[in-house]
């Protein structure tokens, strides 16, 4: 039988709370230089969109754990794809790293599920007549020097409540029979950033 152990934020003198709880919960790779992040982010997007679907099927009136909310990332300058890049659009390495001049946009912007658009502020104004998003007026943004924006539809996790649910999953797993073992490893590992006590896994092990 396979036993496993996960250790989370349990460094003895580490007084800080997990940052995952307070986090905005917006799906968007941020300040990540590591190339592996693209794959991890895509896999996580798969999961979050799946959870969004499940949330929509729920009949209760609670706020969803994950929801799709349009996001606007304001830019002063273009910093995006220009007309000359279009001929390269279908190339496999179209969105490569910063060293590749084919596109300055990050890899994640290519995922059609988030409906990424690189817009001028005027295009955004036009679109917002339809979208009706709660954003500052176009004049305010333009006068402040924001001439461009990334508009996309990422999932947003209700971080504290998702952690509560995760905590519930841990409790559930630690109180059930060993027959739960089969699928449990994935369940636990998906709580990567969830802090727990070592008593948690000890308790779990006692059920084996």
């Amino acid at each position, binding site marked *: 039988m396979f*036993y*496993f*152990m*996960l*250790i989370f*934020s*349990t*460094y*003895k*003198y*580490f*007084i*800080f709370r*997990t*940052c*995952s*709880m*307070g*986090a*905005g919960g*917006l799906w*968007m790779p*941020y*300040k*990540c*230089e590591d190339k592996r992040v693209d*794959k*991890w*982010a*895509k*896999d*996580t997007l798969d*999961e979050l969109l799946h959870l969004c679907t499940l949330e929509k099927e729920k009949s209760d009136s609670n*706020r969803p754990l994950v929801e799709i*909310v*349009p996001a606007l*990332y304001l830019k*002063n300058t273009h910093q995006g794809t220009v007309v000359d890049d279009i001929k390269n659009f279908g190339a496999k390495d179209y969105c490569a790293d910063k060293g590749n001049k084919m596109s300055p946009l990050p890899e994640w912007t290519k995922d059609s599920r988030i409906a990424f658009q690189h817009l001028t502020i005027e295009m955004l104004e036009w679109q917002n007549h339809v979208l009706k*998003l*709660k*954003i*500052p007026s176009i004049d305010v943004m333009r006068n*402040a020097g*924001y001439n461009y924006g990334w508009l996309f539809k*990422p999932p*947003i*996790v*209700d971080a*504290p*409540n998702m952690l*509560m649910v995760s905590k519930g999953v841990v409790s559930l797993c630690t109180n059930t029979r060993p027959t739960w073992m089969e699928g449990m490893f*994935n369940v636990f*590992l998906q709580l*990567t*950033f969830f802090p*727990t006590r*070592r*008593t948690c*896994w*000890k308790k779990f092990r006692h059920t084996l």
Partner: protein
Amino acid sequence: MLEEIQAHPLTADINVDMEEGYESMEEMVSDAKENGCDALVNCTGLGSSKLCSDETLISGRGILLHYERDCPRTMIDDNMKHDAAILTEDGPWGTSTNPVYIIPRGGVVVVGGTYYEGKTEANLTDDERKRLVENASIMGIDTTAASPVAEWAGFRPVRKSVRMEIDEEVSAKSGVKVLNSYGHGGSGWTVYTGVAKESVKMLGLD
């Protein structure tokens, strides 16, 4: 007004007692071995700087205010019905270390923020609170009519590259397969499932 801000109401429920935490990787591995574990995944975030003596892992301090999701807004046309997240690191509103953002999630709107590498101040200063209120105002929250309901300081585990690897030396010595997974910065919710799947793969369990 600001004196009335409380920590998030779920904080006490989610954060767990750290008294039983480990002082070193050796202690952790030893405990795992003692309890018959085959594998150990170290996901201690910033705690790994001490546990693994990893000086390249530093904090990326972030601060937030929370407003009620349906708080009064300004600069918003009555027809604007749908929530949106708004972010910028460009001036004049934001910078790379003081990004400005508003993110509706759950029952609150999160207003940020900072990205201070190496800073470990656990509480918000008055100046920081004032700046976040200004950010909220810029992003369309009517701060004359709405007060923050919670505040937050958190510490992203920042590393030049993510450490996602089997610790071969410790694994061989202890007989417990040790996988280090930390340094994911501010992308926890963006990569958590992918990292979990990668962990399973690296441990040979896929």
